[in-house]
């Protein structure tokens, strides 16, 4: 399929509606990002155009600057659907890792406090936070009934077990619990997969990093978020583990069966969808919310393990003072009001980026906007951005979620073959602890695009603003 787009301003491009598209598509890119899209024969833009064919889409279908080729929706895709006009929900538009997201903690420590104990802390983190496949802790002793409560109550359930601090919940998107979760809509197999995995990182691109604030771009927002140069932070990236994957599998299959009944023509099976107001749509949203709550709970429990690890490394609670800056998701579907309409916003590899004064912000951030956490790669840096009024107007209050790969996993492995990446990173001051060396090779820094370019385009397009840049000191991977 040929792709035709027009440039609207320096970083904004529009694909006018054509063929089966029901709305325009818009994406944000720089010249460099555009060249990369071209090198993939615009495959991810074709996926974006496919999204715009779904019923009830409220235009435009959007892609963030970290856009890349996915399945069904492109990664970096944002699309809103209006239930009043037959709008759909698509489990493929949420993805397999439901409510996968990132949580940032800020500490009371500075870089000089941590450096002497860095390797020791790395070991304690690796011991305390299960990362590899099948690795788990003897606690929490969770049974099926307890898991059902996790699915209903999210991060709050974990905090109420004593694994959290007062005030944690306020700094989680939606308070760490999506409304409408129904644990009864989650299959027994999803329960089976989820039971042993609460409080585990998982493999692939999931990670835990200890970092320091290298640069502050926006002192006012940084002060509101409690970030200052040299301050130690912790970034946790994980999702709903096997439970979420199973929920997605179950409902994609069910939606494929019912799509014809609702007259939904699928240009790609992975876009399987059903009307939001249909029994199937409602069942998925209830199961998705349950899986989302599992993901919030997972990051909450890992936060508890991180605090424990800092204490085991000799940092007393009053010294490490680890507190949440924010926890946000980059794979979900949520009801929000945009342009006076209540719509279901799908974000697949995209984050919510609400601007100042938007609903669901902690009071402390109401004047500056929502923190947007954008992980880069393990050798360079990650960014903290803040949501803007521009994002509310242009992108359904959404922004980017990461760097995006530039090398495939096998090419990355080939590239670093014969090199001791763990040692190289150690020489650059980054302690890596990983269950598998292969994961490290697949996740090598050069396998990713430079996230600085993505952050720059986000700012240029007006859908976010840079607040701070974080450099890794410790990386824990599955």
């Amino acid at each position, binding site marked *: 399929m040929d792709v035709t787009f027009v440039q609207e301003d320096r970083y904004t491009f529009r694909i006018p509606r054509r063929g089966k598209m029901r709305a325009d598509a818009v994406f944000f890119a720089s010249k460099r990002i555009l060249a990369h899209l071209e090198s993939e024969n615009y495959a991810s833009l074709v996926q974006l155009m496919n999204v715009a064919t779904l019923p009830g889409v409220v235009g435009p279908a959007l892609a963030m600057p970290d856009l*890349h080729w996915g*399945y069904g929706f492109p*990664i970096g895709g944002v699309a809103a659907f209006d239930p009043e006009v037959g709008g759909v929900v698509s489990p493929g538009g949420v993805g397999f890792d439901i409510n996968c997201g990132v949580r940032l903690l800020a500490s009371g420590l500075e870089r000089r406090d941590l450096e002497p104990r860095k390797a020791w802390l790395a070991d304690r983190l690796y011991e305390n936070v299960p990362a590899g496949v099948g690795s788990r802790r003897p606690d929490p002793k969770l049974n099926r009934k307890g898991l059902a409560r996790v699915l209903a109550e999210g991060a709050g359930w974990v905090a109420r077990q004593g694994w959290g601090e007062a005030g944690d919940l306020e700094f989680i998107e939606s308070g760490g619990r999506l409304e409408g979760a129904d644990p009864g809509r989650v299959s027994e197999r999803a329960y089976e997969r989820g039971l042993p995995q609460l409080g585990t990182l998982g493999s692939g691109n999931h990670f835990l990093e200890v970092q320091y604030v290298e640069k502050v771009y926006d002192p006012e927002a940084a002060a509101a978020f409690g970030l200052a140069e040299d301050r130690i932070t912790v970034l946790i990236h994980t999702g709903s583990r096997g439970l979420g994957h199973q929920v997605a599998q179950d409902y994609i299959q069910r939606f494929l069966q019912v799509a014809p009944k609702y007259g939904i023509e699928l240009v790609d099976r992975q876009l399987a969808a059903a009307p939001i107001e249909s029994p199937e749509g409602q069942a998925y949203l209830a199961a998705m919310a349950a899986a989302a709550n599992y993901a919030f709970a997972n990051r909450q429990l890992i936060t508890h393990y991180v605090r424990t690890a800092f204490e085991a490394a000799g940092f007393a609670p009053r010294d490490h003072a680890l507190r949440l800056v924010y926890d946000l998701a980059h794979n979900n579907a949520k009801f929000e009001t945009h342009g006076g309409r209540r719509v279901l916003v799908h974000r697949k590899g995209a984050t919510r980026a609400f601007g100042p004064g938007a609903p669901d912000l902690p009071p402390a951030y109401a004047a500056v906007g929502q923190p947007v956490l954008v992980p880069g790669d393990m050798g360079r840096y990650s960014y903290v951005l803040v949501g803007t009024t521009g994002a509310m107007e242009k992108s359904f209050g959404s922004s980017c979620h990461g760097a995006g790969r530039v090398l495939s996993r096998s090419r990355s492995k080939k590239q670093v073959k014969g090199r001791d990446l763990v040692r190289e990173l150690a020489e650059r001051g980054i302690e890596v602890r990983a269950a598998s060396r292969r994961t490290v090779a697949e996740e090598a820094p050069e396998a990713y695009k430079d996230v600085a370019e993505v952050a720059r385009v986000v700012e240029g397009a007006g859908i976010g603003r840079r607040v701070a840049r974080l450099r890794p000191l410790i990386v824990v991977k599955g």
Partner: protein
Amino acid sequence: MRLRMLDHTADVGFEVEAGSLPALFEGAAKGLLQVMFEGPLEAEPGDEHRLRLEAESLETLLVRWLDELAYLVQTRGEVPLEAEVSLDRTSTGWRLEARLATAPFDRVADRFAGEVKAATYHGLEIKQTGDRYRARVILDV
């Protein structure tokens, strides 16, 4: 049976070609193991495991088959080293029956390359050309 691993930027997957549908499914199982594990698995198969799956289309059945095998490995700790598949048409679609020879995950854990979240339907189509069957599968890892 021919298996070709795909090398995409964001995803992994494989193309499989075989002279029969059961061989295509058996080949896809090998493709999944090549993604999940590094290098040949040298463990001796011990247990036998039987599977029965149904789906309305061959493509859905292929996704279910791969998801089932990933579940066996990652949740049940049983690695299907060998698979013998039979396929039958039913009134509503297709039925797969498989006999698997499995080894405990612990024996091959050092070769494990990372989790597979699911098989996707993206671009999935089982094509028949003459007496050859072909499928292309993208996995979410």
